[in-house]
């Protein structure tokens, strides 16, 4: 039987999740929508559909992009398919009280209009249970300050694709230091020309080489932060 004839309803849960991984990889939006609905109809919680099928599938897409197997357009198509699934799940997630892990303000720095990586990070972070406020591209330090003041996130995320714009991340961090609020936030940075050494040199808490790593790094830092707050409260 060819894929075109495949009736997703006939698949077991495990087979369907595996098929969703393939469909996400191929950027098949309608198939993802259909499979999402099938899993919900079978009694899956929206959170499980999100994490066990969509996020898991997108993690593989991210890894293959990093390894040079997939190109940007293919990743964007996969992201569009995932977004379509998330569009169905989002209102249900709110109703069913899915776990909220933390919050993040994210934006591309001043002078930089690139947002593909940032958008992927936003989507994956949302998928992992983070509340994400995306302030877009070309952000001067004032925009970051305004957004963190308004939303009080756990994490401030900054993205840059250019060698010429990545130093601006340091400007933002130094401004946080000057204002005495640096330690109020976990600062994560990412973007193609960045690396661990750069992140460390500008005083960021972590460098995230891709969206999946961003999610894992964010979870780790937020858990550590909550533990510290808990320890202080119990002291």
């Amino acid at each position: 039987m060819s894929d075109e004839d495949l009736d997703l309803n006939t698949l077991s849960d495990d087979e369907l999740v595996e098929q969703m991984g393939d469909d996400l990889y191929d950027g098949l939006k309608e198939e993802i929508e259909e499979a999402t609905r099938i899993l919900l109809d079978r009694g899956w919680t929206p959170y499980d559909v999100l994490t066990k099928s969509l996020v898991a599938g997108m993690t593989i897409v991210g890894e293959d992009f990093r390894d040079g197997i997939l190109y940007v357009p293919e990743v964007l198509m996969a992201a569009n398919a995932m977004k379509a699934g998330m569009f169905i799940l989002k209102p249900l997630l709110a109703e069913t009280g899915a776990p909220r892990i933390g919050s993040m303000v994210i934006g591309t720095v001043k002078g930089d209009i690139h947002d593909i990586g940032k958008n992927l990070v936003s989507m994956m972070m949302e998928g992992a249970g983070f509340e994400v406020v995306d302030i877009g591209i070309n952000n001067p330090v004032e925009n970051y300050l305004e957004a963190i003041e308004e939303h009080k996130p756990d994490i401030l995320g900054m993205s840059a694709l250019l060698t010429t714009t990545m130093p601006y991340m340091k400007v933002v961090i130094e401004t946080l230091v000057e204002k005495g609020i640096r330690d109020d936030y976990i600062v994560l940075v990412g973007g193609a020309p960045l690396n661990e050494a750069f992140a460390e040199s500008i005083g960021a808490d972590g460098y995230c080489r891709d969206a999946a790593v961003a999610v894992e790094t964010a979870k780790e830092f937020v858990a550590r932060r909550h533990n510290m707050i808990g320890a202080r409260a119990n002291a």
Partner: protein
Amino acid sequence: MEAREGAAGFRHPDKPLLILCGAIASETQAVLAASGLSDAVEITALPAIWHNFPERIPEGVEAKAMQARKDRADRPIFVGYADCGTGGLLDAVCQRMDLHRIAGPHCYSFFAGEARFDALAEAELGTFYLTDYLARHFEPLIWEGMGLSTNPEMRDAMFGSYSRLVYLAQTENAELTVQAQAAAERLALRFERIFTGYGELGDFIESVRP
């Protein structure tokens, strides 16, 4: 007299070595020739496609430099790259091995001149740049190299934040201008052409003079 090939594959260990990006090889040769330095320097090129994979550049340069220094430990080595998206990692290699690279962030900048390039970027952030090489090889390097040949419908998702394409021309070549203009049309961007010549590449080549 033809020089003996060195153990590491270099033919002229007595001369300074220039390790360069394949995407500026012909421009570099033109500048070397104009400066009378063609025979004074040995050149070796790394793949131009690394324009799309800058993370490969530091390691590639380091490997070439190490090979060259096997022949002659004190050989002067120059690097025909700017930072080129390596985020300082190429600089770390250069510092570690005492190599000298072209100043600036990338080839657009050293061809246009840093001040002019900054002004261009400032005037319109959403600018996509081509050089002679990129205009000539737009199809394999950009269209196919970025995966648009298989999924052209994703063009606007990838280039939606861009509004213009600036062709920084190193030479007066009507055919390349036509190709650059066609590239702009393909990406649905406004086209502009600026003649730069070889810009600051000339200053760098002067520094190579033994």
